[in-house]
């Protein structure tokens, strides 16, 4: 037993000495020169970042913009000033600050910290994640109105919004839930931040970036001229959390300052379809039928959950190829048989497994941590499957819910605080003396 252990250590050492590259042991070849002249050895410079891009500065501005949006939306009810605020915040958070770090991306930092040890998370990131959610609990989706640079850039591109058919709209709205789930799985298993990787507008803010992402961003902005805010409504994973929080918001957008005259002008003006028309108090469907449907959902839940778990397990194989550690371990096995090609100055390309070997990494600890990651990924994917099923059931239950209202009301889950409905409401215009 003991001998085999020592043998193992010996073999590893041999491998490191002979098979592997020896670059990392080979630095400091020449002695330090002894100068006879009065030559002073220069010091390496360390340029620092600007104060105005400091996250704390940005955080204070974020608070300020959120507060200002609340005041402009609920107190002054002014679309004009809100629009100016949108442009100002797009200029700072987008073009000047460069878009990072934003609340949408901070989801991943939060979940990575929750499920991992030794993750570097600054307190500002936590504040950036929780501030918009807290405002949503009390004031609705204020963050989407002006403070979010991704929303702001799309807001300026809305030219002639069309109504998305209800069926297509409700199907597309499921995508953010799936996206959020995948992003959380990726972040909590240390597989990279996919929300940031597929952030379509950040390359506009920086005037440079990945070409395919830039093109996709352009396409989304073009679609945004007719389908208002496509990213916010059908992609944004943060909108899932904001929707949930703003469901219980204390302050809600009331379209008219006094009495609704049921003129449907506000409904036509809403770019995101957040305004619901008056609903009749009598339903064509009997109460018994709706109850029956609920019972069916209750019966189907365990079967669906099982299916969800199976789906999650089936996802393991394709997703495990994206995990950096598991990938290296798999490549190491194939590297054992093949010849590692020599690098030279004109061909310095190297795979991650080769780089691991070149730097003399410990294979045993890598395999151990890869095993742990494997287990973690499997568990995360099972939870992902369960989450998907719960979302599906939630959608079904929501469809059976009955709503009655006598005037036009704003769905605070969908409202993105753009104040277009105020502008179109004849009652408000009359009070303001515009009509």
């Amino acid at each position: 037993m003991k001998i085999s252990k020592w043998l193992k250590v010996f073999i590893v050492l041999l491998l490191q000495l002979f098979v592997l590259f020896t670059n990392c042991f080979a630095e400091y070849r020449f002695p330090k020169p002894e100068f006879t002249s009065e030559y002073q050895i220069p010091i390496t410079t360390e340029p620092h970042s600007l104060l105005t891009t400091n996250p704390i500065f940005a955080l204070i501005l974020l608070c300020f913009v959120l507060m200002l949006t609340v005041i402009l939306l609920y107190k002054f009810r002014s679309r004009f000033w809100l629009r100016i605020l949108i442009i100002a915040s797009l200029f700072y958070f987008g073009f000047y600050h460069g878009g990072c770090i934003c609340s949408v991306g901070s989801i991943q930092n939060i979940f990575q910290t929750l499920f991992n040890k030794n993750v570097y998370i600054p307190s500002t990131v936590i504040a950036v994640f929780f501030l918009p959610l807290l405002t949503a609990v009390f004031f609705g989706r204020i963050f989407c109105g002006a403070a979010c640079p991704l929303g702001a850039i799309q807001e300026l591109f809305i030219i002639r919004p069309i109504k998305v058919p209800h069926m297509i709209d409700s199907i597309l709205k499921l995508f953010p839930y799936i996206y959020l789930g995948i992003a959380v799985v990726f972040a909590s298993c240390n597989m990279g931040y996919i929300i940031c990787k597929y952030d379509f507008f950040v390359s506009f803010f920086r005037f440079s970036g990945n070409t395919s992402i830039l093109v996709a961003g352009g396409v989304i902005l073009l679609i945004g001229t007719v389908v208002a805010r496509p990213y916010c409504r059908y992609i944004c994973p943060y909108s899932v959390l904001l929707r949930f929080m703003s469901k219980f918001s204390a302050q809600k957008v009331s379209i008219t300052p006094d009495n609704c005259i049921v003129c449907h002008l506000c409904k036509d003006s809403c770019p995101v379809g957040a305004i619901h028309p008056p609903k009749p108090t009598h339903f064509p469907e009997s109460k018994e039928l709706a109850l029956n449907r609920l019972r069916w959902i209750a019966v189907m839940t365990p079967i669906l959950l099982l299916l969800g778990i199976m789906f999650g397990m089936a996802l393991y194989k394709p997703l495990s190829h994206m995990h950096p550690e598991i990938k290296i371990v798999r490549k190491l096995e194939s590297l054992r048989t093949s010849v590692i090609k020599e690098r030279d100055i004109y061909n310095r390309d190297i795979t991650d497994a080769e780089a691991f070997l070149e730097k003399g990494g410990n294979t045993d600890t890598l395999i151990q941590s890869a095993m742990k990651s494997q287990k973690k990924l499997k568990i995360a994917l099972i939870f992902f499957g369960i989450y998907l099923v719960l979302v599906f059931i939630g959608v079904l239950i929501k469809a059976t819910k009955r709503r009655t209202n006598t005037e036009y009301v704003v769905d605070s889950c969908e409202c993105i605080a753009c104040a277009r409905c105020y502008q179109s409401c004849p009652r408000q215009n009359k009070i303001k003396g515009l009509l």
Partner: protein
Amino acid sequence: MTEKQQYSRRQFIRWLISGFLFLIGGFLFVKSRRDDFLWQIDPDKCVHCGKCATACVLTPAAVKCVHTYSICGYCDLCSGYFVQNAAKLDTGAENQLCPTGAIIRTFVEDPYFQYTIDETKCVGCSRCVYGCSSFGNGSLYLQVRHDRCKNCNQCAIALACPADAFKRVPRNNPYLLKTDKL
């Protein structure tokens, strides 16, 4: 159900949710670090593959070559400056390894030469880094320059890096410079 009852129930849920948010937020806040992070390359892990120059969201990349002079051997035949089998050891472009001519070679005293990086020209291709660490002292290496870096939440180079050399470092001390180990 009366209007008032519904209102109070909603209010209760609202306080419940905000309490929950504060709880998680507080838990994370205790775990968190007070200083912000920036990305940096660990020069000990770097395998100078040249991906920094192309993977960065900025063009040219925020990664530049830096020089720790105290490690440098001040060689006449610098393996980070000259191509292998250079015809002549002078500043001729055909002899230089750097594609943009960003390394300035100045005479100090016989036989020593000082090599300085002109960061406005450097594109972070790491050719000189390869040359210096393969055949020299390894005094040339890559670092993220924070006057240029946009500090993306997910660094694009970190995703492309084969050696996992990118890591987050505190904002107050954002450089991992090589020091004189001799």
